[in-house]
């Protein structure tokens, strides 16, 4: 085939099943992830039409959104949530879909368990009825969120109707300073391009700063691609990717591994391939980032001051900023550092992996959280929880005055009873600061695990670069 192709082009071309004039492409899906919230109506649709799941062995389910993070021996008290989880169990049993449900040692947030089980692999097409499916792009997979009608289509046909997305190169060069992490990179990108900047596009993250990141950190960045309007965000697979995958439960073995790696090595974007758009960010100039408003694009370097709506330019932007500051009860020009917080949430598909917990624990070790602050640490999966406990991280969180919970989406989406009270302020390592996202009337500052931990100790938004020993903290993490 003539011409240089991007990573996205290659995956796309590999998966086109059919193309009719005037119609979207029929795109084959390699892996379909299912959770309790966006799937029930899809299974109902299958039953109504008398259809089966075409490939239950390319489908995998877990319960994460509406599940409590209280001890697993307690029942789900919320009747609706209990019914939804029970419905998922019934659907999986009836249609033959493997379920990593409550009580399973592999239960967890769908975007944490896919990679952890080795199901997420380079070059795949991966979908889920969940916008943070973009997480899996960290492995060089084309992974994106879909609606429930599309969940039904994939269950029935293992295919989707899609138009080829435009490509958007996000180049991150330079080196991150100590105390600045992947979360700060993505928040800086969102502050730069806005929450609609990537609409119609797929991001490809490239450059030295991206190559230097661990898989966990790459996942943090790809996870929030959707917050920039891009359905997917990818990183080219490399040795870091292969090292992460080797030996995982569903990763290929032996000769199959060798041929898979050879195939994966052909995926990266060809030299000279063209992107539809491009942006470059200098990693070495980045500070820890924090949001001040009600969408993830409303972010600032942590030492900055809240912007003034009157300086916003156009009317609609000014109105948006005024509404955001009114909801957040923040004043134009006030510093963010020192802003009082009530709750600190560490977890979610953005920052609930083991390296995130290691960073937070390193920052909290031997310290106590401020009086009046509630610290909630929620591992992204049961496996992350076990690993953290093996390493004694749970003890560090508890000794600091924090609450160590079972795995789930928890306060990121506040469906399960873990939520803010009206008016409360939270520093959260999750992905969305929308009005009411973490509980009706709650106010969210999005930040990294290090910033969250530093803020828990201070009882107010705090700069993680001032933590003692920050130079060595930044090295904590792992693959």
């Amino acid at each position, binding site marked *: 085939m003539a011409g240089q192709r991007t990573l996205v082009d290659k995956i796309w071309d590999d998966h086109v099943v*059919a193309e009719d004039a005037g119609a979207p492409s029929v795109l*084959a899906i390699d892996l379909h992830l299912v959770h309790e919230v966006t799937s029930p109506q899809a299974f109902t649709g299958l039953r109504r039409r008398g259809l089966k799941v075409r490939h239950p062995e390319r489908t995998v389910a877990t319960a994460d959104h509406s599940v409590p993070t209280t001890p697993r021996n307690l029942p789900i008290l919320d009747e609706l949530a209990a019914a939804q989880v029970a419905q998922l169990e019934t659907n999986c049993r009836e249609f033959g879909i493997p379920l990593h449900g409550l009580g399973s040692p592999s239960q967890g947030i769908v975007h944490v368990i896919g990679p952890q089980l080795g199901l997420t692999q380079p070059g795949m097409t991966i979908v889920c009825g969940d916008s943070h499916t973009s997480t899996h792009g960290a492995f060089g997979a084309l992974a994106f969120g*879909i609606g429930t009608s599309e969940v039904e289509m994939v269950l029935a*046909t293992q*295919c989707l109707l899609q138009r080829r997305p435009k490509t958007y190169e996000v180049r991150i060069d330079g080196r991150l300073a100590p105390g600045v992490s992947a979360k700060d990179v993505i928040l800086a990108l969102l502050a730069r391009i806005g929450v609609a900047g990537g609409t*119609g596009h797929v991001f490809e993250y490239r450059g030295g700063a991206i190559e230097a990141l661990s898989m966990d950190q790459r996942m943090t960045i790809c996870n929030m691609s959707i917050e920039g309007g891009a359905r997917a965000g990818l990183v080219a697979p490399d040795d870091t990717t292969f090292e992460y995958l080797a030996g995982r439960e569903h990763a290929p073995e032996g000769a199959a591994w060798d041929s898979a790696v050879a195939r994966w090595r052909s995926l990266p974007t060809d030299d000279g391939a063209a992107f539809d758009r491009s942006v470059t960010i200098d990693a070495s100039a980045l500070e820890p980032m924090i949001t001040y408003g009600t969408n993830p694009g409303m972010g600032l370097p942590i030492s900055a001051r809240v912007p003034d709506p009157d300086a916003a330019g156009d009317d609609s932007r000014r109105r948006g900023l005024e509404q955001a500051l009114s909801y957040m009860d923040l004043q134009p020009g006030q510093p963010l550092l020192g802003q009082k917080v009530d709750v600190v949430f560490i977890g979610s598909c953005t920052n609930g992996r083991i390296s995130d917990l290691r960073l937070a624990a390193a920052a909290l070790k031997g310290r106590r959280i401020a009086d009046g602050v509630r610290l909630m640490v929620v591992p992204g999966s049961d496996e992350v929880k076990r690993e953290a406990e093996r390493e004694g991280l749970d003890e560090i969180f508890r000794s600091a005055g924090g609450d160590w919970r079972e795995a789930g989406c928890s306060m990121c989406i506040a469906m399960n009873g873990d939520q803010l009270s009206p008016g409360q302020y939270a520093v959260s390592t999750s992905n969305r600061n929308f009005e009411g*996202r973490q509980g009706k009337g709650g106010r969210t500052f999005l930040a990294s695990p290090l910033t969250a931990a530093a803020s828990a100790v201070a009882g107010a938004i705090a700069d993680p670069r001032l933590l003692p020993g920050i130079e060595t903290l930044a090295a904590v993490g792992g693959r």
Partner: protein
Amino acid sequence: MPDAYEAFTSAVIPLPKENVDTDQIVPARYLKVTDKEGLADALFRDWRFEADGGLKEPTFILDKPQMYGRRILLAGDNFGCGSSREHAPWALVAWGIRAVITTSCADIFRGNALKNGLLPIVVEHERHRQLFELVAREPDVELTVDLASQVVHLPGDEDLPFDVDPFSKLMLLEGTDELGYLLGKAPSIEAWEAAHPPRVDTREHTGTSA
């Protein structure tokens, strides 16, 4: 499956907000349903109601009596961003909304809307501004949405053309859905699968988890 999408005439619900996310359209606590019933009550819930269940003061635009029965929502830029929840278009349609006029729609929301008989109409910023001015001047002005000819008829002889994906247009006008089309592709799918071995088996456990 939605009914065939026919031309209709309606006054407009103006919602001059940018970046309306799907958490505002349907808050997450209403996602615990296993069917599509009752979502009209959840629509814009936290902008409409106080914690005690009473309507907010001042009343949110949707609950002003003159807005009842209106089928066109005129919204700000980047409507429907955030979560992939299809509950958002389900709730809008349950309320009676059939078209959202905006300057841009989030990708997942747009796809979800088109599958549920909700037409996203994307217009240029200047026309968008003029529409808000028109509605401010004449709050009860009626527009006619004609998908077949891809035009919104404005008062007088003015027509506002809009783009729509030709395939989605066909599906909407026929009241059919994409699954039927995909099921018809079974021979192509079988041929593709025969030539492409599966990447993973989710049931098979090959080793121990690292």
